[in-house]
């Protein structure tokens, strides 16, 4: 799996900091890894001499397991650290924790942290390559990459000119930002749709369309990426109730039935069934939610592999 191409960056801090060529390279490499993980022997020795620390300063199940699996499939050595966000309030704790782990000669850090830009802070302090597994309401680059990968699969390859609408809580979502940057690099058109209190006032400056009309947006799009209502990230109420949200902004069976076209339904998980999306829609044939999960492992293998390759050549 030798690749002559390289990433333009030592870290993956966000899609914002990747070039279109970087994104293409990651997705192309992920395709090869997807073949690997569907073979009877799912493991390759690519990262045999690499040690990766998974630092989760915020609760995560899916992303953490996906990264761990990707690391194991690549034969990396891994160490895990988890802390609830309440016990990590100050940066010295972050830096102290990371320095402790780096003193054990770690090559790469996969980190989730509640503070936007925490990975930038770290990148200025340590030598290891850093992969952002989510930083507050900023970015979640590997989620956007696996989403793009899954959309390509579902739509037959090229995303140029395709219409993707991101539904729901954009204000509190790192997935939305990373998706916007990623899809724009791949030539797709992006719209965001949700209640105005959950759409940042200046989101239009990123070059996306804004709509508050769910039915119209479903009809407009080829792919509906439905975001989780981030109740845990809302310290004030942005919507009156979940019931009202579902009735007026939820992706419901009735709204899907009114469409005169087929669209792809995605969700980064975990789903609030009956809130942002109805069970019938989430489990329908339109949904590629489980494919997203499978593709997540391949995309994360690709990111780790390419960063390690760049490290080795440096």
């Amino acid at each position: 799996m030798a690749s002559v191409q390289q990433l333009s960056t030592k870290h993956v801090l966000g899609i914002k900091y990747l070039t279109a060529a970087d994104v293409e390279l990651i997705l192309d490499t992920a395709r090869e890894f997807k073949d690997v993980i569907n073979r009877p022997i799912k493991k390759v020795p690519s990262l045999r001499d690499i040690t990766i620390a998974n630092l989760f300063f915020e609760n995560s199940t899916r992303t953490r397991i996906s990264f761990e699996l990707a690391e194991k499939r690549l034969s990396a050595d891994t160490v895990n650290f988890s802390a609830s966000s309440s016990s990590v309030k100050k940066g010295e704790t972050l830096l102290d924790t990371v320095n402790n782990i780096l003193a054990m000669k770690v090559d790469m850090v996969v980190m989730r942290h509640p503070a936007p830009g925490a990975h930038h802070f770290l990148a200025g302090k340590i030598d290891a390559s850093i992969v952002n597994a989510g930083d507050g309401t900023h970015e979640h680059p590997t989620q956007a990459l696996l989403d793009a990968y899954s959309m390509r699969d579902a739509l037959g390859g090229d995303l140029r000119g395709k219409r993707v609408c991101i539904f729901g809580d954009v204000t509190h979502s790192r997935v939305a930002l990373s998706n916007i940057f990623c899809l724009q690099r791949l030539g797709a058109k992006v719209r965001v749709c949700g209640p105005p209190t959950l759409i940042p006032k200046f989101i239009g400056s990123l070059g996306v369309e804004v709509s508050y009309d769910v039915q119209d947006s479903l009809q407009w799009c080829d792919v509906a990426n439905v975001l989780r209502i981030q109740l845990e990230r809302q310290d004030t109420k942005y919507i009156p109730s979940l019931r009202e949200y579902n009735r007026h902004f939820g992706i419901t069976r009735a709204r899907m039935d009114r469409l005169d076209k087929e669209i792809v339904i995605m969700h980064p998980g975990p789903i609030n069934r009956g809130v942002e999306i109805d069970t019938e829609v989430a489990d329908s044939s339109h949904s590629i939610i489980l494919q997203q999960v499978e593709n997540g492992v391949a995309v994360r293998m690709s990111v780790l592999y390419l960063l390690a390759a760049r490290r080795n050549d440096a």
Partner: protein
Amino acid sequence: MLLRSVSITDTHSPHHGKTQDVRIANGRIEAIADEISARDGEEVFSHEGARLSPGFVDIGAYLGDPGHEEREDIASLTAAAAAGGYVAVAVLPTTDPVRQSVADMTYLASHNGSSAVDLLPLAALSRDNAGKDLTEMMELAAAGALAFTDGPGRSAPGNLLKRGLEYAKSFGGTIIDSPYDTDLAEDGQVHEGGVSVSLGLRGIPVMTETIPLARDLTILSYTHGRLLLHLISSADSLQLIQEYRDGGGDRLVGCTVSAHHLTFTEESLSGFDPNFKLLPPLRETTDREALRNGVLEGRIEAIVSHHRARHGEEKDLEFSYSAFGARGLETALRQLLSWADTDEKLERVIAALTVGPRRLLGLPPLSVAEGNPAQLTLFTTEGSSTFTVDQLRGKTTNSPLLGLELPGRILATVNNDRLWTLA
């Protein structure tokens, strides 16, 4: 002492624009002439391209003494101010405990008279800065307090501001308010706009400033007190002030802007560098241009350093956890020179560092003229160099200018009958 061949930059001086020799004796400007011969043993200052202006005066620097000496004590603050060419700094009363007694005034004044920089006291508007009961304003004014404020970071509550403006009329006192609505700002981190969206950081809308500012001006019209609006950050704010003045309002003493807001915009935040995390936040290019024009047209009377030392444990953190504030005393002039690149602009900028702040604080004007007390700044606009950490003079390193190429430099100051040269 004799200042040899200095170009006088002071539009209020009869010698403005001329290169002259200037003699200082007994703390006053004794003579200004084309050529003055040095007396035996007289100290002579001479530097190619040196300019001479009235001494710089700052309004609203944060002092950590008492309470937070680990950030900035009197020695470190005055050293930083001297390095920036200042001869006097009006320091905020937001110390711990807050500056609100005659003894506090005396403590501050006890350091004056023999160093490069004099400290001018601002006193608390409300007791303990709690926003409720007025301090003993008349006593404090008699003890030297130049103005009253509860400090930037939040507006004075409406009723407190109203009572303060009314009460201070009895002795001609000035109230300083920095309009900022903490409720609307929520937990905002940076200016609300394209950059805040792109960084996933909660934004601070311009209306957090304009709404309380409009309220302040309404209360001012009602009370006919004396108000100084400190740290204006947006074009809209300037527009509101203009409308107040155009409508015949004459009770606004003036307004200030920070050198940082004249230098940087929200774009500087794209790398999550906490040294650019300021309150009010750095705003958009159009705001910066409006603020620059406000200075050049004399609608903003004073440029301030907005100096706020923060040590590493409160600043060198993930962006959201990092405290607001940046150093500014050492660099104010040099960062202003980076855009004030003509003689005309330089004259306006120097006026906003000297004449303007003196007037806002009610201090007598001190132009470069024979007989006047000698509080002077010597600088050059020539040359440039990279600003590095060893040029900082305080206890902390939270300067957004580090690593930037800055024009000119401060050469020396004259204050308390001494020439204070900078290495």
